[in-house]
């Protein structure tokens, strides 16, 4: 697989919050290489620094230490223009759909922003609506039902799916999805995963899944990174990591997933 292009990589990436006694090393000297059109999962328990890592990749947090390389070059997002350009390439689905929306704006505004970002400001209204309807259709939502509503009038799952609909409009090169299906039922989850995979195949998008659900990671990804307390403790292809875990931590993550066919051992926590 050496011929694949590295799309996003980082060396020694570190983020420290606070100082003195309240110092938290959220991400601790992390190295990674994400290839083009690859599906990567970053798996770890809560507080292991997954979201912090994602925010650094997105340019929403400045790393304390370390470098990020985008398409082979050192990432430069020093001005608003460069940032805007960067964000055309990399987009995100945030962890908590309830806090991802500006509750004072109607839902249409979120989708319109995406169309504008792709230079569609001058499109006729009918075409904008068509685009938005199509994007909602991808995630099993009906645009006619959502238009003119406020975010708090949707259910958690509907909010999360709408976030994914954004991505269908933006078609970025890299998508960081932070627990994108935590509030979605299994059936729709399957549909949405299918859709995301389809989108990846169509436009060669790199998909970075952030999840604590190792089952989901195993199901979707090509390679898996396991994070524990800010460090990457194990990484490799999905089969390698999940079927033959080397770290005790990884084994624990696997055992904590609720099972149906096997006994789910509650005594281990």
């Amino acid at each position, binding site marked *: 697989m050496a011929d694949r292009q590295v799309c996003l990589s980082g060396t020694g990436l570190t983020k420290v919050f606070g100082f003195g006694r309240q110092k938290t090393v959220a991400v601790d000297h992390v190295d990674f290489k994400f290839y083009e059109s690859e599906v990567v999962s970053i798996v770890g328990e809560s507080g292991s620094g997954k979201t912090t890592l994602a*925010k650094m990749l*997105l340019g*929403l947090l400045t790393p304390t230490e370390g470098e990020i390389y985008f398409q082979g070059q050192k990432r430069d997002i020093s001005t*608003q223009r460069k*940032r*805007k350009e960067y*964000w*055309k390439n990399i*987009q*995100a689905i*945030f*962890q*908590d759909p309830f*806090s*991802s*929306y*500006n*509750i*004072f*704006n109607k839902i249409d505004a*979120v989708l319109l*922003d*995406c169309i504008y*970002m792709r230079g569609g400001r001058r499109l006729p209204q009918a075409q904008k609506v068509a685009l938005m309807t199509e994007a909602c259709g991808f995630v099993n939502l009906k645009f006619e039902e959502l238009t003119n509503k406020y975010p708090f009038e949707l259910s958690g799952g509907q909010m999360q799916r709408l976030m994914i609909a954004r991505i269908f409009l933006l078609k970025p090169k890299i998508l960081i999805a932070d627990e994108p299906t935590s509030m979605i039922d299994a059936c729709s989850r399957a549909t949405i995963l299918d859709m995301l995979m389809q989108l990846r195949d169509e436009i060669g998008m790199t998909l970075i899944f952030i999840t604590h659900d190792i089952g989901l990671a195993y199901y979707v990804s090509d390679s898996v990174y396991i994070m524990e307390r800010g460090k990457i403790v194990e990484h490799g292809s999905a089969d390698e990591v999940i079927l033959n875990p080397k770290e005790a931590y990884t084994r624990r993550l696997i055992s904590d997933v609720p099972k149906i066919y096997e006994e789910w051992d509650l005594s281990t926590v």
Partner: protein
Amino acid sequence: MKHTLHQIFHSGKFVLGFCIFIVILLIVMVYPVLFPYPPLAIIGQGTFFAPGIYVNAYDSVHAPKYTLNLEDAAAKRIASRLSEDDRVAMQEWLVGYGIPQGEIDINDTAQLLGLWNTHYDPKAQIPGLTNAKRNYYIRLDTALEGLLATEDAVIAVKNPETGALEAQGTIAQSDYVNVGQVANVRFLPLGTDNFGRDILTQLVAATRVSLQIGFVAGIIATLIGLTLGLLAGYIGGLVDDVIMFITNLFTVIPSFVLLILISFSIGQERRGAVTVAIVIGFTSWVWTTRAVRAQVVSLRNRDHVNLSKLSGHSIVHIILNDILPYIASYVVMALILQISSGILSEAGLSILGLGPRTTEVPTLGLMMNWAMIYQAYVLGKWWAYLPVLITIALITFSMNLMNTGLDQVFNPALRD
């Protein structure tokens, strides 16, 4: 939005506060239209006329007369000139003079007066009679003159040539005039102040000016506080440090002291109502800044702000669109508090004699100041200060009520 408004107007506290405030506002707006008196015109010669209806005596004489045969007229007339206390005092004097108590019936006016007229002698030595008491009896004696008379009063006019009095008409004891037909009647519900100015008119004007000062001061303070708070909270880093340094500086100096110093240095001459409002505004933004900043700091890491960034929006757009609406309710509450504290600050300054200069407009604080300087409290002229106090209290009370009402709606944890 509609739901929130619905909730707000279902909060009893808010509605009560709002109603009080609206009533005050309506009075302030409607009163000058109905009664366009100049608020600072000196109408009374003399100080602190009590509240009441003032009927012009000269005009009453000339007004058409109507005879009303009312039984108790004479009794009321006597009562108004000879009170129960006076009767007891007269009895005391007579007893002191040597008349046995049993012979005096203080309820029989004719008998009492008869005894008094035969025996009273201002020079008589009564044991235990103080000088003040002696003077009181002399005054009482004059007042009693003609009390039982039933004759008409004669109105006479001085002949400009001869200087002799010429009878023009008579007024019988049962003559009445209709107040509506008297040319000059002035109702002074709150009397006049030490300068002889109509207090109600003045109070209404003062309330308006004080509200204006409060609004201007509140809006200035809120605007400054909001802007600095937003910048410090959202941009962070150096901007935050600088703004917080200035804010902390202002926090350690009590703002009222600062207010006094600035007002003093501006000088009496240049201190108009607007200037005072601006000065108050510029010294009271500090806590709005702190409060807004704290809110913004907790908002700026929210994902909806991140999403807005990822959508390529500028800082200004994010602040206006993604931050401001979230703290709007908070800012409204801060504004209300700032307005009411602006009004109180003005009152405080004016009581110290550092308020707006006195010749143009009254303010609530100035009215308090005048009442204080002219010792209305000591003299018991309650109408000069009590209405002002009540007005100040009502305004701040209504605003604080609105504020707690809003707080309960916006801050569900406080809802009981």
